[in-house]
């Protein structure tokens, strides 16, 4: 059992790791993921005792606390009980020694002299390097061969702890998958710590994942759980921004940059759901539904919840027993044909229809009346912008109107906010444009104005009812991109109503299929698209554009990305 307790590592008094608690049991393989600079490598090096900074806390291996051992005792553990596989960078191997000699050395330095060179040849063979390669010097070998040699070296004394530091970085795809196979058998039965920024590697090698952010663990959990439904905002952002050929939703990043030594929650400057306490107090890593999460709000919060909503028009059921949850910063697509009740659903949320029964909850409070505050939080955009924009108002008045209604700020402040909102939707804010009327705008421009009008109040939830179906394809793509950018920047949640499954797949994190007023299927977009369970979903999939033959290839069209990233990662 390897136990890390309250580990603090600082360089020149500024901490790089700040109170890490982790444990690895034999047979466990734990991935440490996070952006570069989060302290991942420092963690690996501090276990093997090669970190240069000041180290505090406890690293318990069996009966020993590694941090109290002398350098000599530590040296005799390195490579013998704790093996480390480094990334195959240009100079990871001594350029002047033959490979087999370097592997042999790993044994001889621990006193295993007898038969060491034969054993080294056998080890190299076991990792897939033949006799001829064993006699080579590093510069004569390919990247994959060098990585294999590094693995052989770490395994030489059959250590109980194995640390892999970016073991698949800088390898091409084919080699990477070979090396992953090799590593999978290498970590079996050991206590393994896999440091990587590559989520696919983590998914393939590890049964557990810990997410490191600015020297802190923000979430840990079983690999499948954590990747399929990340709970910490940072984990979600990390997975969202992970480039994968088989992603469905377009890539999104996380706003801002990582900084160390931030007071309160280390992530708060980039978090779109922060509350007051986040800036003052550091959240503890606490168990929650089989995970550990460090977040004052217990992870990503639900923004909008529909619970058993029923609506009938003259004895005709339009929505029956609809329950949905939309999380902060996510997009929930509701997909259905016309007449499925999807527009009614949108209008029920915004308050145009009153449910017969069932509840609607916004930010954990039941919505009873739609007052000004409600519309500050929830805004809507419609299919046909020209109809929703009054043709008697110019662009400036249109975007300013919500501010007037809410009585927000002075005239100058309003003008400023109007211009900022127009900037966010990438429209000009000059007098000429501000003075135009809806009939002078193109379809794309009009929809942007409508979005600006919705965004000027900085709402948390945007209901988009077929926002692009009246636009041609290229304009449509730009508007969608714009919505996703707004989501990334602001943590905007989007309820996306559409009949187009192909479109829904591109923009949504979760997907609900509405059929005759009922939710027939709901789940992570990827799962629904790849493994539809309901007959109706399959019918929709068959008729969806762009989802035909190329559904599983992942290569065909950059804009129409395939299958879910998490599934792909898990099945990699």
């Amino acid at each position: 059992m390897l136990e890390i307790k309250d580990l603090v590592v600082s360089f020149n008094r500024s901490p790089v790791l700040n109170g890490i608690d982790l444990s690895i049991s034999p047979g466990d393989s734990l991935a440490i993921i996070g952006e570069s600079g989060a302290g991942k490598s420092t963690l690996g090096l501090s276990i093997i005792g090669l970190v240069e900074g000041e180290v505090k806390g406890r690293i318990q291996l069996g009966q020993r606390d590694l941090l109290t051992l002398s350098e000599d005792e530590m040296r005799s553990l390195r490579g013998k009980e704790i093996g480390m596989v480094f990334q195959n960078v240009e100079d990871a191997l001594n350029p002047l020694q033959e490979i087999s000699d370097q592997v042999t050395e790993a044994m001889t330095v621990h006193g295993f002299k007898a038969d060491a060179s034969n054993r080294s040849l056998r080890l190299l063979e076991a990792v897939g390097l033949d006799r001829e390669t064993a006699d080579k010097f590093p510069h004569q070998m390919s990247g994959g061969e060098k990585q294999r040699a590094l693995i052989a070296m770490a395994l030489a004394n059959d250590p109980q702890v194995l640390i892999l530091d970016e073991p698949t970085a800088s390898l091409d795809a084919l080699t990477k998958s070979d090396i992953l196979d090799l590593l999978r058998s290498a970590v079996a039965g050991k206590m393994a710590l896999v440091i990587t920024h590559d989520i696919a590697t983590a998914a393939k090698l590890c049964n557990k994942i810990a997410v490191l952010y600015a020297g802190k663990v923000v979430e840990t959990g079983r690999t499948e759980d954590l990747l399929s439904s990340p709970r910490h905002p940072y984990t979600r952002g990390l997975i969202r921004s992970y480039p994968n050929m088989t992603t469905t939703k377009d890539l999104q990043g996380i706003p801002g940059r990582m900084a160390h030594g931030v007071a309160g929650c280390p992530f708060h400057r980039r978090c779109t759901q922060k509350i007051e306490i986040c800036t003052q107090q550091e959240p503890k890593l606490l168990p929650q539904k089989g995970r550990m999460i460090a977040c004052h709000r217990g992870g990503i919060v639900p923004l909008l919840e529909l619970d058993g909503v029923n609506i009938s028009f003259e004895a005709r059921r339009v929505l029956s027993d609809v329950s949905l949850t939309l999380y902060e910063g996510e997009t929930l697509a509701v997909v259905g044909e016309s007449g499925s009740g999807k527009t009614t659903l949108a209008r029920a949320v915004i308050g145009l229809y009153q449910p017969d029964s069932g509840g609607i909850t916004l930010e954990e409070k039941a919505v009873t009346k739609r007052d000004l505050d409600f519309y500050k939080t929830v805004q809507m955009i419609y299919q046909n912008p020209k109809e929703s924009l009054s043709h008697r108002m110019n662009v400036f008045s249109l975007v300013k109107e919500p501010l007037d209604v809410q009585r927000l700020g002075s005239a100058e402040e309003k003008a400023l906010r109007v211009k900022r909102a127009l900037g966010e939707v990438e429209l000009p804010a000059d007098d000429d444009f501000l003075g135009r009327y809806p009939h002078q705008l193109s379809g794309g421009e009009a929809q942007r104005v409508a979005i600006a009008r919705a965004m000027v109040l900085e709402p948390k939830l945007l209901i988009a009812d077929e926002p692009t179906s009246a636009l041609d394809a290229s304009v449509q793509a730009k508007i969608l991109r714009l919505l996703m950018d707004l989501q990334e920047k602001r943590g905007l949640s989007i309820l996306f109503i559409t009949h187009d499954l192909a479109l829904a797949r591109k923009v949504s994190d979760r997907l609900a299929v509405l059929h005759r007023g009922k939710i027939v299927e709901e789940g992570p977009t990827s799962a629904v698209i790849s493994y539809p369970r309901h007959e109706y979903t399959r019918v929709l999939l068959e008729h969806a554009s762009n989802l035909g033959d190329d559904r599983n290839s992942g290569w065909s069209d950059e804009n129409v990305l395939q299958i879910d990233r998490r599934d792909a990662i898990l099945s990699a």
Partner: protein
Amino acid sequence: MNASRPPHGNFINYLLALVAIFSLNFILPRMMPGDPLHAIYGDEALVAMTPQMEAYLTEKFALNQPWSSQFTAYASGLLQGDLGYSYYYKDQVSTVIMGALPWTLLLAGLALIIATILGTALGIESGYRRGRPLDRGLIASLMFLSGFPDFFVGILLLLIFGVCLGVAPLSGATTPYSGATGLAYALDVAHHLILPLSALVLVQLGGIYLLTRNTMVSVLKERFIMTARAKGCSDSRIRYEHAGRNSLLPVVTATGMRLPQIITGALFIEIVFSYPGVGSLLSSSLDARDYPLIQGILLLVTVAVLTANLGVDLLYRRLDPRVRYAH
């Protein structure tokens, strides 16, 4: 493509350089204005020269014949080791040089070996202890020493140990007429050698040390050092086997490039200590304007530098597999 193969390309380069040097040595005197014999032997020699002698020499160098025959005569002379006749020493130039060469080889060779070993050893230790007192102390003192020109250090040593303290002989390579043999002779030689040798070593040490130390510092930052540490290698293994060996490579290259400097340094030091090597010989041949001898010495020095460079090249090939198995 990875097979070990002899460095043909390089040998050819060396051969070309050698041919160029010999050709220049042939062409230059003959391009000078006036009589080539004049140019080869100089004014004073001609004054002392009898017509018979002049006729003999003209005949010998085929100076009255076309260039092609002249070159054949020159080349065949060279092949027989004939560098001409030193009228000052009244002997064959090659014989005169051979008398002085062993002393120079002894002095310069020993200096090179000692400075290299000492410089790299100090450099490795110092680089490994970067920033600590030993490192700082060594940097300061060796930088100070290597700031002086070589003859100056020579004169300084001569003044302190030879003149003031009187513990070392002032000049020469042996005590004249001592008739010592065997061990006594060897000790006598060593006693005479110590000062010029120290001067040369001290001057060369700084550069070698500094280069080794700086290379060591940067090699220690390379990833394979971390790999070696993670294997459990001991400090001394890291220092010598991994970092040390890698730090040697630039030293070897630099030594090759510094060879001309080392040789001229040795020649100056010989003059300071009146050490009977090639340097002193050059000095007196310059005084006497013994042109054939001067030319012979210069030819020898160039060939020596070239040969030594070839040696360094071969050594580097042995040390660095990346060059040995270059694709």
